[in-house]
């Protein structure tokens, strides 16, 4: 048996995070090549500063400036850095207790090789040139017992942008697979539940009311009935047709569940519940494993279906 179709799925977004007073102070100071901690309820100086105390949950507010130099308290070696990590050559992750702090900060140490680093080693921050108010303003730490670069002037920040880019492989289900392969040939392949005998288009991994995989394939024609619809008058991100246009639930003849698709070729004000429609396919050379092979539906010219014939699908 061939494996179901799969394709890349990338999830990427630049999150915009407001910082509030504590994180805002810390990141504004990093921009100035300063490191600021905060005193906890037990007297410890936390770096990075904690917004709320881990013991009492009280909001913390007593800032304490610490050095940009410190001591490695624990480390591991990364032989092959991953996307987004601070260095693109082998490095150490380390918990670093900065001079003046009582707790440790996680960052990368550019130590060359595992032999170049040890617990207790002295390190200093290597500051980035173009600092924006982010933890990455510290490019990494380096093994050194020299002082770090002196502070510089910079404006406060109140926001930080944190890009997230994750990469997945999305697979179709074994029941969805024949449907997708059928689409590549211009066929509309539904599946029938062996228990309730309802015909699902598109097919599902399991019948949602019986919890069993669907088994029988059913070929459907490319015409059906509009059950309900809305007229889209609003522009939005990623829209491909200028509004107004109609987004409609289409119940294919022989299917037991409607799906959303576009309805064109008719003025929005003339669209009715019960209107009969047929598919308008894209040119064959544009077909792929997607319902977008059907460019849209258009009125077929048949008389409207009676309300009773689709009322149980609303």
């Amino acid at each position: 048996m061939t494996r179901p179709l799969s394709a890349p799925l990338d999830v990427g977004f630049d999150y915009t995070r407001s910082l509030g007073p504590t994180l805002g102070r810390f990141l504004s100071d990093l921009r100035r090549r300063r490191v600021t901690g905060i005193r906890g309820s037990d007297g410890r100086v936390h770096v990075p500063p904690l917004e709320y105390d881990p013991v009492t949950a009280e909001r913390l507010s007593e800032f304490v400036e610490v050095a940009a130099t410190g001591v490695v308290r624990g480390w591991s070696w990364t032989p092959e850095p991953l996307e987004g990590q601070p260095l693109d050559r082998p490095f150490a992750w380390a918990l670093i207790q900065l001079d003046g702090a009582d707790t440790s900060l996680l960052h990368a140490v550019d130590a060359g090789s595992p032999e170049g680093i040890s617990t207790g080693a002295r390190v200093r921050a290597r500051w980035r040139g173009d600092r924006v108010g982010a933890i990455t303003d510290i490019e990494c730490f380096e093994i050194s017992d020299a002082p770090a670069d002196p502070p510089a002037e910079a404006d406060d920040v109140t926001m930080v942008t944190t890009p997230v880019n994750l990469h997945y492989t999305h697979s179709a289900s074994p029941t969805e697979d024949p449907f997708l392969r059928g689409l590549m040939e211009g066929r509309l392949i539904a599946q029938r539940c062996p228990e309730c005998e309802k015909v699902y288009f598109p097919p599902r991994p399991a019948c949602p009311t019986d919890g069993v995989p669907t088994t029988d394939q059913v070929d459907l024609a490319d015409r059906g009935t509009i059950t309900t619809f809305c007229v889209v008058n609003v522009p939005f991100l990623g829209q491909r047709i200028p509004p107004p246009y109609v987004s409609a639930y289409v119940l294919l003849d022989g299917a037991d569940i409607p799906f959303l698709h576009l309805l064109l070729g008719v003025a929005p004000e003339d669209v009715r519940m019960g209107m009969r429609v047929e598919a308008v396919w894209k040119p064959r050379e544009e077909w792929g494993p997607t319902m977008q092979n059907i460019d849209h539906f258009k009125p077929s010219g048949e008389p409207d279906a009676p309300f009773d014939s689709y009322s149980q699908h609303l």
Partner: protein
Amino acid sequence: MRPAAVVGTGQTHHAAKRLDVSMAGLCREAVDRAMADAGVDWPDIDAVVLGKAPDLFEGVMMPELFLADALGAVGKPLLRVHTAGSVGGSTGNVAASLVQSGVHDRVLAVAFEKQSESNAMWALSVPTPFTMPVHAGAGGYFAPHVRSYIRRAGAPEHVGAMVAAKDRRNGAKNPYAHLKQPDITVESVRASTMLWDPIRYDETCPSSDGACAVVISSEPTSGRAAWIRATAMRTEPTTFAGRDQVNPQAGRDAASALWKQAGITDPLSQVDAAEIYVPFSWFEPMWLENLGFTDVGQGWKLTEAGQTEIGGLLPVNPSGGVLSSNPIGASGLLRFAEAAMQVMGTAGEHQVDGARVALGHAYGGGSQFFAMWVVGSEKP
């Protein structure tokens, strides 16, 4: 099952972008108010339940983990609930069950959403391979079902606008509401842009940053208490052959279990206020029917007669509801908290006089997840 009560509620000032706080700060604004309202301190809290809609909204996987210090959860049990749009309600119900079961005496329930960290439309429409992209935008999913309701119930077109005008006017009485529009009218709603016909601009919920918290206890801590008389949760598949999307069975089943548990036989006369999850105006009459306040097809008549206004037979969303503030993950817990505030008599300007029994209701986007509770001023 032993009795449990809401003894304190708190919420943030809701806004499109709360750029003055971090996520932790946002949660604590609600939590600190709830704990002050309840008159409790951190050692009094046995466990914490956090509710939030999809992690992609804030770009943090299981944010309860990084929020544990801010939630006072270190050394305590911490649960994270996620049941889609109904999550705020489920959070309240799970927290209630921790007390009702006898496992804990006092539990803090918190729900939040900081929509300004990203864009909900993006998070909900990451293009999944092989899946037809939704070419209709946010309201495009709901609008066809609203059309179905209007057709089936034979409802006049102005009812949706009446709901929107009422909820926004109520929101103007709520100091925490995102939208405050005291001068809105049915006419101005009807004159607003038609976005997803039949849904107009003024009939849609805003996108908000916000949080809500409640303290649930086995005994009153502050003198005031909203006793939890019943809770219910029901789920059905988002789509299936023959599904009734206008009046889903899961909502009807949840409501009938809820009324039975609360000993309520005639909800319309026995419930004094209802906080119902209405993100688009027409869902008020739809849920009035689904909840059994009216017969099928009759919900709009209650709205049209003005009976869902403050002062009517059944005030619905005296707080302004989701149409006035929508921090998605928190919206359900806000409904639950506002119901508790009504029976505790702490709702201020939007207080329903003499409210003794109130409903809190939440549902998930595809109308497939329902969570509800009934609270009362009398100990059961």
